[in-house]
């Protein structure tokens, strides 16, 4: 029964994926991709990875989807000029090559060693030392904290890269156009209703990350989405990117991360090491500003480069 469900789900995933690739209209393909992400999140639940399922739904489907929807809507006007389709021979040879690659990969998957290697026992053995109950959070914040640290830097760096695409005279301005709330707007009404709920949910998901599925990335994504929603509804405006408070907000998370990392030299003898008694507290001290920073970064990544000149 469970296997039948798995197979149906897999077929559904592949069907939506095929639609995403084969749809003639880019917008339709993007909508297909969002659906793909949601179905894939179900697959992650079946693979006993609820943390990943949340992330997939929030970032893989939600944020990426939103970004692509916006992009395809803006590209619609130009799409008519690029109607050329690749030749049938290219499609055929590409099909053959890709089938070959898929088959090879599938063969390797089937041939994976019978006794799968795992680090789960080692993760479990040290879990008590960190004081966390969610093993995934422990990996992200302790064992492989340096990956997480670099990843947050990657996010900031990409944000800087996106800002750098603004024309010179708009540098330091606000991203996106100003959304004005209409008097009978549906969106402002919903945003007023939804944003407080969403913020609560975001904080909740972040907060339970230490014991249950959730964590800073998932929570931050929801917070970011609420910010975007509020902006779209015209309740708030995107700040000018040269604002000092914004820069501080963006960097706060990684700054605290680095600070605690360096404190590790003194307190526990290694960079990013936590003394046993304070591990949980220190991780929380990192996570709170980190969540806010990631939320701000994600929202601004979706907002894009500055499009309005800074007010002098």
């Amino acid at each position, binding site marked *: 029964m469970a296997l039948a469900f798995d197979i149906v789900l897999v077929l559904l995933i592949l069907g939506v994926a095929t639609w995403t690739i084969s749809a003639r209209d880019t917008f339709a393909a993007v909508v297909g991709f969002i659906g793909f992400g949601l179905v894939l999140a179900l697959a992650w639940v079946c693979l006993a990875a609820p943390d990943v399922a949340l992330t997939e739904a929030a970032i893989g489907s939600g944020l990426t989807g939103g970004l692509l929807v916006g992009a395809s809507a803006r590209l619609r006007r130009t799409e008519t000029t690029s109607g050329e389709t690749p030749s049938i021979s290219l499609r055929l040879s590409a099909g053959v090559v890709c089938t070959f690659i898929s088959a090879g990969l599938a063969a390797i998957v089937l041939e994976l060693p019978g006794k799968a290697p795992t680090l789960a026992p080692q993760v479990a053995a040290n879990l008590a030392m960190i004081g966390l109950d969610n093993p995934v959070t422990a990996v992200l914040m302790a064992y492989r904290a340096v990956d997480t640290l670099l990843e947050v830097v990657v996010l900031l760096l990409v944000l800087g890269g996106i800002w750098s695409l603004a024309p010179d005279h708009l540098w330091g301005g606000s991203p996106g156009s100003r959304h004005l709330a209409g008097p009978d707007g*549906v*969106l402002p009404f*919903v945003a007023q*209703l*939804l944003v407080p*709920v969403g913020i609560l949910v975001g904080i909740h998901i972040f907060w339970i990350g230490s014991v249950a599925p959730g964590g800073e990335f998932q929570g931050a994504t929801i917070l970011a989405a609420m910010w975007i929603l509020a902006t779209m509804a015209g309740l708030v405006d995107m700040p000018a990117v040269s604002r000092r408070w914004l820069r501080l907000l963006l960097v706060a998370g990684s700054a605290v991360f680095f600070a605690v990392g360096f404190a590790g030299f003194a307190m526990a003898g290694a960079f990013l090491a936590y003394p046993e008694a304070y591990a949980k507290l220190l991780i929380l001290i990192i996570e709170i500003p980190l969540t806010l920073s990631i939320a701000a970064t994600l929202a601004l990544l979706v907002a894009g480069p500055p499009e309005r000149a800074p007010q002098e």
Partner: protein
Amino acid sequence: MSLALNGLTIVAVCAGAFFFLAGTVGLLRFPDALSRLHALTKADNLGLGLVVLGLLFQVGGVFAALKLIGVWLLTLLAAATVSQLLARAARASGPHE
């Protein structure tokens, strides 16, 4: 007792699934954007409500039940908003499909 609950769940979820099916058929068969939206949102909201109702018989605690109802309410809100926005966009772009 649990047999009765299971039975209620099955009935409710099946009814929900039927409404989903009806909504989807409407989406595919109705002629223009507004009537498609009409079919889809009404049927799906009811369908989801029935599915949630069915699942309520299975949950253990009050908190979990509240969460399920919360999910339904949020979906209602989202569906209502999106259909409003879609309908306005459809009206703005004219009567043609």
